[in-house]
Protein backbone atom coordinates (compact mmCIF):
# COMPACT_ATOMS: atom_id res chain seq x y z
CA UNK A 1 0.00 0.00 0.00
CA UNK A 2 2.92 2.30 0.80
CA UNK A 3 4.41 2.02 -2.67
CA UNK A 4 0.98 2.77 -4.18
CA UNK A 5 0.67 5.91 -2.03
CA UNK A 6 4.18 6.97 -3.07
CA UNK A 7 3.32 6.34 -6.72
CA UNK A 8 0.08 8.34 -6.45
CA UNK A 9 1.97 11.24 -4.83
CA UNK A 10 4.58 11.12 -7.58
CA UNK A 11 1.87 11.06 -10.27
CA UNK A 12 0.08 13.99 -8.62
CA UNK A 13 3.23 16.10 -8.49
CA UNK A 14 3.94 15.30 -12.16
CA UNK A 15 0.34 16.22 -13.04
CA UNK A 16 0.65 19.55 -11.21
CA UNK A 17 3.93 20.24 -13.04
CA UNK A 18 2.35 19.41 -16.41
CA UNK A 19 -0.68 21.58 -15.58
CA UNK A 20 1.57 24.53 -14.74
CA UNK A 21 3.48 24.07 -18.02
CA UNK A 22 0.16 23.90 -19.93
CA UNK A 23 -1.08 27.12 -18.28
CA UNK A 24 2.26 28.84 -18.98
CA UNK A 25 2.08 27.74 -22.64
CA UNK A 26 -1.49 29.07 -22.91
CA UNK A 27 -0.54 32.42 -21.36
CA UNK A 28 2.52 32.81 -23.61
CA UNK A 29 0.46 31.69 -26.63
CA UNK A 30 -2.22 34.27 -25.92
CA UNK A 31 0.28 37.10 -25.48
CA UNK A 32 2.54 36.34 -28.43
CA UNK A 33 2.33 38.18 -31.77
CA UNK A 34 3.85 37.10 -35.09
CA UNK A 35 5.11 39.23 -37.94
CA UNK A 36 3.57 37.99 -41.20
CA UNK A 37 4.67 39.64 -44.43
CA UNK A 38 2.41 40.28 -47.39
CA UNK A 39 3.51 38.45 -50.52
CA UNK A 40 4.44 40.57 -53.58
CA UNK A 41 4.30 43.92 -51.81
CA UNK A 42 8.01 44.72 -51.72
CA UNK A 43 8.70 48.33 -52.67
CA UNK A 44 12.19 49.87 -52.47
CA UNK A 45 13.34 46.85 -50.47
CA UNK A 46 10.65 47.35 -47.82
CA UNK A 47 7.99 44.72 -47.27
CA UNK A 48 4.60 45.38 -45.72
CA UNK A 49 3.70 43.15 -42.81
CA UNK A 50 0.92 42.47 -40.35
CA UNK A 51 1.30 41.66 -36.69
CA UNK A 52 -1.05 38.78 -35.95
CA UNK A 53 -1.85 36.98 -32.71
CA UNK A 54 -1.01 33.34 -32.07
CA UNK A 55 -4.74 32.57 -32.33
CA UNK A 56 -4.79 34.08 -35.81
CA UNK A 57 -1.70 32.07 -36.79
CA UNK A 58 -3.35 28.83 -35.58
CA UNK A 59 -6.43 29.73 -37.61
CA UNK A 60 -4.25 30.49 -40.65
CA UNK A 61 -2.49 27.13 -40.18
CA UNK A 62 -5.83 25.36 -40.65
CA UNK A 63 -6.02 26.46 -44.29
CA UNK A 64 -2.33 27.13 -45.06
CA UNK A 65 -2.93 30.87 -44.84
CA UNK A 66 0.74 31.40 -44.01
CA UNK A 67 3.88 30.00 -45.63
CA UNK A 68 7.50 30.20 -44.54
CA UNK A 69 10.10 31.41 -47.03
CA UNK A 70 13.59 31.69 -45.62
CA UNK A 71 13.29 33.07 -42.12
CA UNK A 72 10.04 34.96 -42.69
CA UNK A 73 6.37 34.04 -42.67
CA UNK A 74 4.27 35.21 -45.62
CA UNK A 75 0.52 35.48 -46.03
CA UNK A 76 -0.95 33.43 -48.85
CA UNK A 77 -4.10 35.55 -49.02
CA UNK A 78 -5.17 39.16 -48.89
CA UNK A 79 -5.88 39.90 -45.24
CA UNK A 80 -7.80 43.06 -46.12
CA UNK A 81 -10.44 41.01 -47.98
CA UNK A 82 -12.91 38.89 -46.00
CA UNK A 83 -13.23 36.17 -48.65
CA UNK A 84 -9.57 36.08 -49.58
CA UNK A 85 -8.68 32.88 -47.73
CA UNK A 86 -7.50 30.01 -49.89
CA UNK A 87 -8.47 26.38 -49.53
CA UNK A 88 -6.22 23.98 -47.62
CA UNK A 89 -3.95 22.09 -50.07
CA UNK A 90 -4.33 18.75 -48.25
Amino acid at each position, binding site marked *: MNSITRRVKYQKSLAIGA*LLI*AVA*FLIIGNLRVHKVYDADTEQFGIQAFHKISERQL*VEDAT*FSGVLRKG*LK*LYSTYDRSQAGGKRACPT
Partner: protein
Amino acid sequence: MRKRRIVQILALIFLHSSWGPQIKWLCNPVLSCHSCPLSWFACPIGVLVHYCGYHVFPFLALGTVLLIGVLLGRLLCGWMCPFGFLQDLLHRIPSPKLFLPRWTNKIKYLVLILMVFLIPFLLGEETMYSFCRICPASALQVTIPHLITAGFGTVTIATIVKLAILVGVLVLVVFSSRAFCKLFCPIGALLAPLNLISYWTVKLPTENCISCKRCDRACITDAEPSSRIAEGIPPNRALECVVCHECQPVCPKKTKQETVDGRQDTGDTSNHPS
Protein backbone atom coordinates in the same frame (compact mmCIF):
# COMPACT_ATOMS: atom_id res chain seq x y z
CA MET B 1 -21.75 0.88 -23.29
CA ARG B 2 -24.83 2.82 -24.32
CA LYS B 3 -23.84 6.07 -22.60
CA ARG B 4 -20.56 6.20 -24.52
CA ARG B 5 -22.29 5.53 -27.83
CA ILE B 6 -24.74 8.40 -27.20
CA VAL B 7 -21.86 10.77 -26.36
CA GLN B 8 -20.00 9.66 -29.51
CA ILE B 9 -23.07 10.32 -31.70
CA LEU B 10 -23.70 13.70 -30.06
CA ALA B 11 -20.02 14.68 -30.43
CA LEU B 12 -20.07 13.66 -34.09
CA ILE B 13 -23.14 15.77 -34.78
CA PHE B 14 -22.38 18.74 -32.58
CA LEU B 15 -18.70 19.17 -33.43
CA HIS B 16 -19.29 18.76 -37.15
CA SER B 17 -22.17 20.98 -38.09
CA SER B 18 -22.49 24.08 -40.23
CA TRP B 19 -24.48 25.98 -37.59
CA GLY B 20 -21.86 25.65 -34.88
CA PRO B 21 -19.26 28.22 -33.88
CA GLN B 22 -16.02 28.28 -35.88
CA ILE B 23 -13.42 28.13 -33.10
CA LYS B 24 -10.55 27.20 -35.37
CA TRP B 25 -7.92 28.82 -33.16
CA LEU B 26 -8.63 26.16 -30.53
CA CYS B 27 -7.25 22.63 -30.93
CA ASN B 28 -9.55 19.77 -30.03
CA PRO B 29 -7.41 16.64 -29.51
CA VAL B 30 -9.49 14.27 -31.61
CA LEU B 31 -8.82 13.10 -35.17
CA SER B 32 -11.06 15.44 -37.12
CA CYS B 33 -9.69 17.43 -40.05
CA HIS B 34 -10.02 21.19 -39.69
CA SER B 35 -10.17 21.54 -43.48
CA CYS B 36 -13.67 20.07 -43.30
CA PRO B 37 -16.01 23.09 -43.48
CA LEU B 38 -18.25 21.50 -40.85
CA SER B 39 -15.49 21.11 -38.27
CA TRP B 40 -15.67 23.53 -35.34
CA PHE B 41 -12.13 23.17 -34.02
CA ALA B 42 -8.56 22.93 -35.30
CA CYS B 43 -6.84 19.56 -35.49
CA PRO B 44 -3.76 19.67 -33.22
CA ILE B 45 -1.80 17.49 -35.64
CA GLY B 46 -2.50 19.78 -38.61
CA VAL B 47 -1.52 22.80 -36.54
CA LEU B 48 1.68 21.13 -35.26
CA VAL B 49 2.66 20.14 -38.82
CA HIS B 50 2.30 23.75 -39.93
CA TYR B 51 4.06 25.22 -36.90
CA CYS B 52 7.00 22.85 -37.39
CA GLY B 53 7.13 24.01 -40.99
CA TYR B 54 7.04 27.65 -39.83
CA HIS B 55 9.83 26.95 -37.29
CA VAL B 56 7.60 28.53 -34.63
CA PHE B 57 6.99 26.89 -31.24
CA PRO B 58 3.27 26.00 -30.97
CA PHE B 59 2.57 27.34 -27.47
CA LEU B 60 -1.22 27.58 -27.87
CA ALA B 61 -1.70 24.19 -29.57
CA LEU B 62 0.61 22.29 -27.21
CA GLY B 63 -0.77 24.13 -24.16
CA THR B 64 -4.32 23.11 -25.08
CA VAL B 65 -3.39 19.48 -25.72
CA LEU B 66 -1.33 19.32 -22.53
CA LEU B 67 -4.12 20.86 -20.44
CA ILE B 68 -6.79 18.50 -21.79
CA GLY B 69 -4.40 15.55 -21.55
CA VAL B 70 -3.51 16.20 -17.90
CA LEU B 71 -7.14 16.64 -16.92
CA LEU B 72 -8.72 13.84 -18.97
CA GLY B 73 -5.95 11.63 -20.36
CA ARG B 74 -7.19 9.93 -23.53
CA LEU B 75 -10.83 10.24 -22.53
CA LEU B 76 -11.70 12.18 -25.69
CA CYS B 77 -10.24 9.32 -27.80
CA GLY B 78 -12.73 6.93 -26.28
CA TRP B 79 -15.75 9.20 -26.09
CA MET B 80 -15.53 12.03 -28.62
CA CYS B 81 -13.19 11.13 -31.48
CA PRO B 82 -15.28 10.72 -34.66
CA PHE B 83 -12.68 8.45 -36.24
CA GLY B 84 -12.60 6.33 -33.09
CA PHE B 85 -16.40 6.09 -33.28
CA LEU B 86 -16.17 4.92 -36.89
CA GLN B 87 -13.62 2.28 -35.84
CA ASP B 88 -15.91 1.09 -33.03
CA LEU B 89 -18.77 0.68 -35.50
CA LEU B 90 -16.68 -1.11 -38.12
CA HIS B 91 -15.28 -3.52 -35.55
CA ARG B 92 -18.82 -4.72 -34.86
CA ILE B 93 -18.92 -6.31 -38.31
CA PRO B 94 -18.75 -10.08 -37.72
CA SER B 95 -15.28 -11.32 -38.68
CA PRO B 96 -12.30 -13.17 -37.16
CA LYS B 97 -10.68 -10.80 -34.66
CA LEU B 98 -6.93 -10.21 -34.55
CA PHE B 99 -4.64 -9.34 -31.64
CA LEU B 100 -1.77 -7.26 -32.93
CA PRO B 101 1.70 -7.75 -31.44
CA ARG B 102 2.56 -5.32 -28.63
CA TRP B 103 5.55 -3.82 -30.48
CA THR B 104 3.23 -2.44 -33.19
CA ASN B 105 1.86 0.04 -30.63
CA LYS B 106 5.18 1.88 -30.83
CA ILE B 107 4.68 2.77 -34.51
CA LYS B 108 2.49 5.75 -33.63
CA TYR B 109 5.36 7.43 -31.74
CA LEU B 110 7.51 7.11 -34.84
CA VAL B 111 4.67 8.59 -36.92
CA LEU B 112 4.40 11.51 -34.47
CA ILE B 113 8.12 12.24 -34.39
CA LEU B 114 8.77 11.80 -38.10
CA MET B 115 5.60 12.86 -39.91
CA VAL B 116 4.37 15.55 -37.53
CA PHE B 117 7.57 17.10 -36.13
CA LEU B 118 10.77 16.22 -37.98
CA ILE B 119 9.87 16.01 -41.69
CA PRO B 120 7.69 19.18 -41.72
CA PHE B 121 10.46 20.97 -39.78
CA LEU B 122 13.09 19.95 -42.35
CA LEU B 123 11.06 20.06 -45.58
CA GLY B 124 8.41 22.69 -44.80
CA GLU B 125 4.75 22.54 -43.87
CA GLU B 126 3.49 21.62 -47.34
CA THR B 127 5.73 18.58 -47.72
CA MET B 128 4.18 15.48 -49.30
CA TYR B 129 5.48 13.41 -46.38
CA SER B 130 3.61 15.04 -43.50
CA PHE B 131 0.91 13.12 -41.65
CA CYS B 132 -1.87 15.32 -43.08
CA ARG B 133 -1.11 13.96 -46.56
CA ILE B 134 -1.94 10.41 -45.50
CA CYS B 135 -4.45 11.12 -42.70
CA PRO B 136 -7.46 8.80 -43.14
CA ALA B 137 -9.76 11.23 -41.31
CA SER B 138 -8.77 13.94 -43.76
CA ALA B 139 -9.39 11.52 -46.66
CA LEU B 140 -12.87 10.83 -45.33
CA GLN B 141 -13.85 14.37 -44.39
CA VAL B 142 -12.09 16.40 -47.08
CA THR B 143 -10.65 14.37 -49.97
CA ILE B 144 -13.77 12.32 -50.77
CA PRO B 145 -16.22 15.28 -50.54
CA HIS B 146 -13.76 17.32 -52.64
CA LEU B 147 -13.63 14.57 -55.29
CA ILE B 148 -17.42 14.40 -55.37
CA THR B 149 -17.83 18.16 -55.80
CA ALA B 150 -14.79 18.94 -57.99
CA GLY B 151 -14.93 15.78 -60.07
CA PHE B 152 -12.60 12.81 -60.42
CA GLY B 153 -10.45 14.73 -62.93
CA THR B 154 -8.65 16.24 -59.92
CA VAL B 155 -7.30 12.83 -58.79
CA THR B 156 -3.51 12.73 -58.33
CA ILE B 157 -1.14 10.00 -57.13
CA ALA B 158 -1.20 11.63 -53.68
CA THR B 159 -5.00 11.34 -53.66
CA ILE B 160 -4.85 7.67 -54.60
CA VAL B 161 -2.27 6.96 -51.88
CA LYS B 162 -4.40 8.78 -49.29
CA LEU B 163 -7.56 6.91 -50.28
CA ALA B 164 -5.70 3.57 -50.33
CA ILE B 165 -4.47 4.21 -46.78
CA LEU B 166 -8.04 5.06 -45.73
CA VAL B 167 -9.36 1.81 -47.22
CA GLY B 168 -6.50 -0.16 -45.61
CA VAL B 169 -7.23 1.35 -42.19
CA LEU B 170 -10.98 0.76 -42.49
CA VAL B 171 -10.41 -2.89 -43.41
CA LEU B 172 -7.87 -3.35 -40.61
CA VAL B 173 -10.21 -2.00 -37.91
CA VAL B 174 -12.84 -4.59 -38.84
CA PHE B 175 -10.38 -7.27 -37.69
CA SER B 176 -8.56 -5.44 -34.90
CA SER B 177 -10.41 -3.11 -32.55
CA ARG B 178 -9.18 0.50 -32.67
CA ALA B 179 -6.21 -0.60 -34.79
CA PHE B 180 -5.60 2.93 -36.06
CA CYS B 181 -5.56 4.34 -32.50
CA LYS B 182 -3.12 1.64 -31.39
CA LEU B 183 -0.82 1.70 -34.40
CA PHE B 184 -0.77 5.06 -36.11
CA CYS B 185 -2.70 7.85 -34.37
CA PRO B 186 -0.29 10.73 -33.60
CA ILE B 187 -2.88 12.38 -31.30
CA GLY B 188 -2.95 9.13 -29.33
CA ALA B 189 0.85 9.24 -29.19
CA LEU B 190 0.72 12.81 -27.85
CA LEU B 191 -1.87 12.02 -25.20
CA ALA B 192 -0.72 8.51 -24.21
CA PRO B 193 1.99 9.55 -21.69
CA LEU B 194 -0.51 11.92 -20.06
CA ASN B 195 -2.76 8.93 -19.33
CA LEU B 196 -0.21 7.93 -16.70
CA ILE B 197 -0.69 11.14 -14.69
CA SER B 198 -4.17 12.37 -15.66
CA TYR B 199 -6.66 13.47 -13.02
CA TRP B 200 -9.35 11.30 -14.60
CA THR B 201 -9.35 7.77 -13.22
CA VAL B 202 -11.40 4.68 -13.95
CA LYS B 203 -12.61 3.19 -10.69
CA LEU B 204 -12.63 -0.58 -10.31
CA PRO B 205 -12.41 -2.80 -7.20
CA THR B 206 -8.96 -4.21 -6.51
CA GLU B 207 -9.12 -6.08 -3.20
CA ASN B 208 -11.60 -8.69 -4.36
CA CYS B 209 -10.37 -9.13 -7.91
CA ILE B 210 -10.92 -12.75 -8.92
CA SER B 211 -8.80 -12.43 -12.09
CA CYS B 212 -11.74 -13.40 -14.28
CA LYS B 213 -10.20 -11.27 -17.10
CA ARG B 214 -13.60 -10.05 -18.23
CA CYS B 215 -12.18 -6.51 -18.23
CA ASP B 216 -9.41 -7.66 -20.61
CA ARG B 217 -11.97 -9.10 -22.99
CA ALA B 218 -14.07 -5.89 -22.84
CA CYS B 219 -11.06 -3.61 -23.40
CA ILE B 220 -11.34 -2.07 -26.87
CA THR B 221 -7.58 -1.46 -27.21
CA ASP B 222 -6.36 -4.74 -25.71
CA ALA B 223 -4.65 -2.77 -22.93
CA GLU B 224 -5.02 -5.58 -20.34
CA PRO B 225 -6.60 -3.60 -17.48
CA SER B 226 -6.53 -6.71 -15.22
CA SER B 227 -2.74 -6.51 -14.91
CA ARG B 228 -2.99 -3.04 -13.36
CA ILE B 229 -6.04 -3.83 -11.24
CA ALA B 230 -4.07 -6.73 -9.73
CA GLU B 231 -1.36 -4.24 -8.72
CA GLY B 232 -3.88 -1.77 -7.29
CA ILE B 233 -3.38 0.73 -10.12
CA PRO B 234 -6.32 2.37 -11.92
CA PRO B 235 -6.87 0.53 -15.22
CA ASN B 236 -6.56 3.70 -17.29
CA ARG B 237 -2.92 4.20 -16.21
CA ALA B 238 -1.71 2.67 -19.48
CA LEU B 239 -0.44 4.18 -22.71
CA GLU B 240 -2.92 2.28 -24.86
CA CYS B 241 -6.05 2.88 -22.77
CA VAL B 242 -8.57 5.20 -24.46
CA VAL B 243 -10.51 5.56 -21.18
CA CYS B 244 -13.68 4.11 -22.70
CA HIS B 245 -14.73 2.70 -19.28
CA GLU B 246 -15.89 -0.53 -20.99
CA CYS B 247 -14.06 -2.52 -18.28
CA GLN B 248 -16.31 -1.12 -15.55
CA PRO B 249 -19.74 -2.64 -16.24
CA VAL B 250 -18.36 -6.13 -16.95
CA CYS B 251 -16.58 -6.41 -13.57
CA PRO B 252 -18.47 -8.93 -11.38
CA LYS B 253 -16.97 -7.33 -8.24
CA LYS B 254 -17.78 -3.73 -9.06
CA THR B 255 -20.11 -3.31 -6.09
CA LYS B 256 -17.39 -4.13 -3.57
CA GLN B 257 -16.10 -1.45 -1.28
CA GLU B 258 -12.41 -0.97 -2.04
CA THR B 259 -11.39 0.85 -5.21
CA VAL B 260 -8.09 1.05 -7.01
CA ASP B 261 -7.30 4.50 -5.69
CA GLY B 262 -7.69 3.22 -2.14
CA ARG B 263 -10.88 5.09 -1.24
CA GLN B 264 -14.12 3.66 0.05
CA ASP B 265 -16.74 3.25 -2.64
CA THR B 266 -20.49 3.17 -2.19
CA GLY B 267 -20.92 0.83 -5.10
CA ASP B 268 -21.48 3.63 -7.58
CA THR B 269 -19.04 3.17 -10.47
CA SER B 270 -19.75 6.49 -12.08
CA ASN B 271 -16.75 8.26 -13.51
CA HIS B 272 -15.14 11.25 -11.95
CA PRO B 273 -11.69 12.77 -11.71
CA SER B 274 -9.82 12.01 -8.49
